[in-house]
Each structure stands twice: as C-alpha cells, then as structure tokens.
C-alpha cells in the first residue's frame, strides 16, 4: 500500500511552482516600495538642498535671510549634546545590562524589570521630553541647557542600549564564564576579562545605533523648549544650545519657500552624520566579531 500518489503530485507541481513565483514577486514589490520612497526622498532633498550646501553654510549662524543662513550653531550643539549623551547613556545602559545579566538573581522581580525595560523602549519621545522638562529643567533647575537635554536624551535611548547590551552579554557562552570561575576569578574579573571582551562588538553597535537615534530626535528638544535661532556657540554643558533636528524643524516652519531648501541642506548634513555613525557601528561589528 503506497500513500504517495506520484501522478497526483506531478499534477499539482505546476500550481505549487506558480504560487512560489507569485509570492516571490509580492515580496520583491514590498521591498521595492520602501526603496522607491527612499529614492524619491533622497532625490528631492538633494535637488532642493544642494544649492545651499556650501562652505559658508557650515560656518554661519542662523539668519532671517535664507542665503545667509548657516548651521554652525546647530552642528556644534548636536556635537555637545552627544558629548553628554554618549558617556551618560552608555555608562548607565551597559551598567544596567551587566547587573541584570550577571549579578541579579533570576526571580520574578528581575523578570518584571526586564520586561518593562523593553516596554520603555516603546514610550513616545514626547513623553521623555515632558519628563526631562519636569525633572531636569525645572526640578533640578538645570535650565534649557545641554546638560538637561543630554540627560533627557540619555533616558530616551537608555532602554535601547540596555536591551542591545543584554543580548550581547547573553550571547557569550556560559562555558567561558564557568572556565573563569573555576580558576577562582571573581564575578567582576570574569565580566572584565571574559564577558565584556566577547560582547563589546554587540554593545558598541547597539549603543552607536541608539546614539544616532538621539542625534535625530526632535520632540524632546521641542518640549524642553530649546531655541532655534542662536547667534553663539555653546561654551559648556550649562550653556543653552540648538541642535540639528531642531534647526531643520524651524526652517521647515518658515513661510518663505527658500527656507525649505535651506532645511533640505540641513537634512543632508544630518543624514551625513547618521551615515558616518552607522558606518562606525558596522565597522566595529565586522572588525571585532568573534566566532564561537
């Protein structure tokens, strides 16, 4: 008794193959949709903004006249912002991930924390802006400063860094930890010499991607109320400042059409920065990736 009727199977082969080809087309179209939208966006921004993209654009401050408008204050503001966000968010994020994965006992409470960190990553950035305004700007009286905005941004990207670092730490095989413990190493020595070297590519990649989110984020800055027209560069972390996305946002709001082109030039600069940061992340991942 045979259960497989090969004639019937042969008869159905054609429909199965057609289905396969059809679906391949559908999935290709789905990919194509995103690519086309991205291409249109890039094309429009480049054609609009390239006229304004000159050396002066990088060296001048914002102005009422489109031709004289520059992005100097915004670029320096964003760089200063990153100087606060990067160390604060990475120290807190990696520290939290190390505690949760290596030190904390596995119980309901730590599970609860872990689940909620992932939930925090989904909280809208406006909410983090309100939090920053209430706590850092008002309560701690930091004012509309780089420090206040930097701490707010750090909170915003903290969950992303924690989750990425947790995953990187969890990917380190347990046998390596055991080998270290079995030689009398303390937990910290094991973390420093075994766990971190093996997980640093993942941690850095996640952190840089999180930082590039922070550099493009606008809503929290709007809520905190940082200015957009600034005729000086920041002189410290307590100074007020403006940032790239904020400046772009302001230009797009202006009634004069020319300013929209200036905004496009600003977007090119911002995207250039993002591409650089993401390339660094890819470079680090490829360079330090280790096989187990």
């Amino acid at each position, binding site marked *: 008794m045979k259960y497989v009727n090969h004639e019937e199977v042969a008869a159905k082969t054609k429909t199965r193959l057609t289905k396969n080809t059809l679906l391949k087309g559908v999935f290709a179209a789905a990919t194509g949709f995103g690519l086309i939208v991205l291409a249109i966006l890039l094309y429009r921004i480049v054609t609009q903004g390239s006229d304004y993209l000159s050396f002066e654009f990088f060296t001048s401050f914002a102005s009422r006249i489109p031709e004289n408008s520059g992005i100097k204050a915004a670029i320096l503001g964003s760089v200063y912002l990153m100087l606060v966000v990067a160390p604060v968010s990475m120290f807190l994020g990696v520290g939290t991930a190390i505690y949760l994965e290596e030190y904390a006992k596995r119980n309901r409470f730590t599970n609860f924390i872990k689940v909620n960190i992932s939930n925090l990553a989904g909280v809208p950035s406006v909410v983090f802006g309100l939090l920053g305004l209430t706590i850092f700007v008002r309560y701690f009286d930091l004012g509309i400063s780089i420090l206040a905005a930097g701490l707010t941004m750090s909170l915003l990207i903290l969950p992303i860094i924690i989750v990425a670092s947790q995953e990187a730490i969890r990917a380190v095989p347990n046998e390596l930890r*055991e080998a270290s413990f079995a*030689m*009398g190493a303390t937990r910290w020595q094991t973390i420093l010499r075994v766990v971190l070297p093996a997980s640093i590519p993942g941690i850095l990649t996640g952190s840089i991607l999180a930082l590039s989110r922070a550099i493009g984020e606008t809503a929290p800055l709007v809520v905190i109320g940082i200015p957009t027209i600034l005729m000086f560069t920041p002189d410290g972390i307590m100074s007020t400042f403006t940032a790239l996305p904020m400046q772009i946002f302001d230009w797009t709001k202006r009634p004069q059409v020319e300013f929209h082109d200036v905004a496009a030039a600003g977007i090119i600069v911002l995207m250039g920065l993002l591409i650089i940061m993401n390339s660094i992340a890819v470079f680090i991942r490829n360079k330090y990736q280790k096989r187990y």
Partner: protein
Amino acid sequence: MTTIVKPEVKTAEKETVKKNKSSVYKTEQLNLWYGSNHALKNIDLDIKENEVTAIIGPSGCGKSTYIKTLNRMIETIPSVKTSGVINYRDKNIFDKEYQVEELRTKVGMVFQKPNPFPKSIYDNIAYGPRIHGIKNKKILDQIVEKSLRGAAIWDEVKDRLSENAYGLSGGQQQRICIARCLAIEPDVILMDEPTSALDPISTLKVEELVQDLKKDYSIIIVTHNMQQAARISDKTAFFLNGEVVEFDETDKIFSNPSDERTEDYISGRFG
C-alpha cells in the same frame, strides 16, 4: 613473563606510597537536591592525594554533580541545596566563611567540552595567574611554558603562542584547558569527562597526561568510559542513582567487585 612482572611492580609501588598518603577530600553524609530532586544521597568518600580517582556510573547517577560540588561550581545552578560536609584539607568547604574563590585557586577543573577563551594561546594560559595578580612578564612567560610543557602540548604550540586558541583542534584545545588549569598550580584537578568530545588519539594523549600529572597532583576524573577508568585510575567509585555503591581500588572493582550492581554495570549488563 612481562605480564606477570608488571602487576607486581604496580602493587609494590602502591603499597610504599599508601602509608604517607593523606586525604585531600573527605566527604561525609553529603546530600544534594535540585529543587525537589534528590540527586546525591548520603555520599561518604575519602579521596587521597596523588592518586587518580575515577568516578563511573550511568548517565544521571550524580557523578558530574558530585565533582562539581567539590569546587562548588554546582552553586551556579540556583535551585541547588546541599547538606553534609566536604572537607578539603580538613576544612569544610560549605562553611560560611570559606572563600569559594580561594578553593578554586587550589582546585582546578577541566570541563567536558573544551572551553578555551577566544584569546591567544598565551593569554589563555596566563589568565589564571593574571587574575591572581601576577603581572611580571618574565614570570608569566615561565608559567606559560611550564604549564604547556606540563600538558604535553608545548612542542605543538610554542611557535604560535599569539594565535587564537580557537584555531587549534579539539584535542589540542582540551590540552590547552588542562595547561590553563595547571597554570594556577593547583593541588587537585577535577576532570569532568574530559575526553568525551575527543577522538581516540587525543583521548590517548589526555590519558597519558593524566598518568603523568598524578605525580604532582591529585586527580578526580568523571568518565563514561569504563576502560578509561580501568586504564588510568588508582581508585574507582561507582555511582548509581545518587549513591555510592562501591569505592575501592580500581583493580578490585574491575576484577572482583563486592556489589552485584557494580558487576552488572562493568560487565555491560546495563548503563
């Protein structure tokens, strides 16, 4: 002729050493539970120094659990509870004041699967001394060479100490792990089925190594392979369902066991 002479020499050797031997590990009424699963039941074992003690038994009999209790590595599993006493050199390792890190610098361990660090061969061997605070490059160089020679792998790797240990074969990796364990100059070496992931030739090398190391170290080895236990050990403990059925001279266990279950197991009737 030779077949008669050999065992005579062996026993003579044993008797001369026997008198001076003191215990490294004295286990008294050890019980261990994984949650509600009673994995080790009233274990009493007296393990002497400079001997190879083999622990045999079928899967799930508690032999790996027991060896991991000896350096308290079992505590990495959160649900584990223990009662009883394990005296290492006359001190109970379960005492609250007992520093587990200190115990593990004296009791090295070789695992079932070779687990070198994804570092250079040199850094693998120097890992233990470094965590114990040795920074002097010359001393580290000497430790690395001595340990690699001790693990009979120096000639194979001396020209590529800076290469990643992951590039070595499985058998070489396991001997690197043994060398790494020797680098902390332990008193006891615990081996948890060290050859189960290796091919026969690498297994032979590790077995020869164990025979060699016996002069300077006390070795406790868990093995699935009864021929291996018979070949390399001085004493053998047979574990079954979390209990020690029999613990005696290896020759006696394999030629004239006193318990029927031991005989059934070593003659291959089960397990």
